[in-house]
């Protein structure tokens, strides 16, 4: 038991550091991509604005013509895309990690749909606007999460049952949203699409502040639990044996993840599959030795930013971002379901 070679310790320390460096590199790379993506969307739209001009405009200089395009159209869209994407990415990976199943993402199990239905209900029926919509969306998201949880409770919750119930509930909520939209006569197709598939059309900078606050607050809370969340991947019993307060961790993760998703949904609608895709993409890039929260947030931000850009400028017609991410996500969903049928898949 104690042929304790000293070099073993340094070898393992070396392995651990190599892994940490690898993770740091990927996070730096994702951050750089995101920054480049933001600059790209600020520079290149219907017209081209040189980088120097963009930087001058961001610095506060008045540039006739380009100033309006960059500051009023492109910047709010980019900022809101990044924040919304990060919120979805975080919310998604939190659920997927906690329930140990990539299908358990909030956009698959009806939580974003619930938040979206709540937002539409608040706008159409209650005639609310601004932060009040977010509050109703969050309440609806939490309510749906609670409903799914209690419906799938049978001496504990298993992932499979929870996911199936969530998918059923999502379908019901989607039709409620569609019904509410049809009852609102003045609704345009653009707006309807926002609440059905998600869009960052007409994003405003003043929408960004509450999103940023939510991201910092709930994202920070989630990050402070990252070790407990990672340990939960080993199963509830083992996690408890390793000193994780399972029930407390669960409650914190559910509340923060639902709040993140609901805040984002209240602004952009349920952008299809961003929460669902971000975590697995991050896992592919990072490997699974360590927390995926930050990379998943970055991947989510990139997905929304680039998806929206592609929907605006790279496709023959203008599509909202949710259509683009939906096209990306649907095949992956099918792949997972097929794989799940063969093996017992997990993230």
């Amino acid at each position, binding site marked *: 038991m104690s042929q304790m070679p000293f070099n073993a310790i340094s*070898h393992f320390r070396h392995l651990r550091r190599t892994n940490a460096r690898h993770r740091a590199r990927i996070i730096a790379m994702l951050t750089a991509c995101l920054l480049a993506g933001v600059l790209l969307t600020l520079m290149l739209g219907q017209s081209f604005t040189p980088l120097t001009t963009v930087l001058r405009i961001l610095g506060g200089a008045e540039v006739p013509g380009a100033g309006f395009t960059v500051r009023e159209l492109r910047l709010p869209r980019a900022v809101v895309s990044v924040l919304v994407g990060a919120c979805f990415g975080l919310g998604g990976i939190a659920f997927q990690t906690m329930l140990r199943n990539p299908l358990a993402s909030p956009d698959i199990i009806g939580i974003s749909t619930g938040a979206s239905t709540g937002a539409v209900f608040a706008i159409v029926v209650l005639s609310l606007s601004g932060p009040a919509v977010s509050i109703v969306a969050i309440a609806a998201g939490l309510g749906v999460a609670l409903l799914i949880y209690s419906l799938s409770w049978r001496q504990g919750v298993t992932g499979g049952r929870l996911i199936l119930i969530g998918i059923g509930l999502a379908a019901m909520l989607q039709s409620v949203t569609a019904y509410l939209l049809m009852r609102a006569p003045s609704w345009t197709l653009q707006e309807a699409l926002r609440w059905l598939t998600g869009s960052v059309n007409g994003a405003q900078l003043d929408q960004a502040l509450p999103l940023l606050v939510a991201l910092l607050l709930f994202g920070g809370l989630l990050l402070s639990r990252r070790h407990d969340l990672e*340990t939960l991947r080993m*199963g509830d019993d*083992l996690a408890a044996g390793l000193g994780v307060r399972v029930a407390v961790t669960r409650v914190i993760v559910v509340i923060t993840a639902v709040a993140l998703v609901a805040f984002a949904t209240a602004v952009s609608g349920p952008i299809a599959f961003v929460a669902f895709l971000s975590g697995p993409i991050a896992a592919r890039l990072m490997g699974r030795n360590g927390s995926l929260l930050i990379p998943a947030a970055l991947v989510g931000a990139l997905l929304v930013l680039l998806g929206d850009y592609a929907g605006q400028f790279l496709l023959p017609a203008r599509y909202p971002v949710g259509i683009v991410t939906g096209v990306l996500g649907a095949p992956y969903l099918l792949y997972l379901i097929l794989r799940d049928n063969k093996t017992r898949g997990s993230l």
Partner: protein
Amino acid sequence: MSVCSLLAQGLVAGYGERTILNAVNLNVLAGQTTAIVGANACGKSTLLRVLSRLLTPTQGSVLLEGSDIHLLPTRRLAQQLGFLPQSPIAPEGISVLELVSRGRHPHQGLFKRWSTADETAVADALAATHMSELAERHVDELSGGQRQRVWIAMALAQQTKVLLLDEPTTFLDINHQVDVLDLLTDLNQQRGTTIVMVLHELNLAARYADQLVAMANGQVYAVGPPEKILTEQMVRDVFGLESRVIEDPVTGKPMMIPLGRHGVSKRHQASNTERAVTV
């Protein structure tokens, strides 16, 4: 040696309406290996879950060195008492080193990570289980026996005084079963770790345990050294099985040989039918 490590008093526990443990008392001696045996659904796994605080008893209490485990903070308890469930699932894509390192979780705070003590404990655990060479491998790629070693290494890295294991040898080939039990005995002898495990295999339990706990119908049927506990009478009462118990020529411990309906030689068959008639 006679210091009491875990003490269960008047445990009543179950799931929902169903009571599984009925007034269980148990005294686990420090530094010993205790094996819990019994037929399926006799409550042995439930007892282990209560001892590890995964299940809260409706009555009674569990004391760890005199303090009620339900009053200890979760992290404190995890520093003193380790638990390995039956066939745990490794997260996909995790490396051996990373999995074993999770054993340090109760010793680490949010910002206080990876001290020298942590590194030493992990390296020590990997060396003890002969897994150092495979540290970089993914757990998914390992054989069943190797995987069980990784889990035990994780429990070792946790460095608890008491280790509870639920059927650590299930689904393993016999060579790996012996290997795992030898490993646990090393741990017990060299570090003085108190081991409590549920075991299916009676003869292995008798061979490796200092103390056998035989359970039947949610109660402790008998507790004591294997020589006193593993008897034909106990096997009959606890498992409803006729058997012969002889001295194991290798270990000198009692060894149980079941008397089934087939394949028994004439000499034993005669007495078997005799018994069957009287039953």
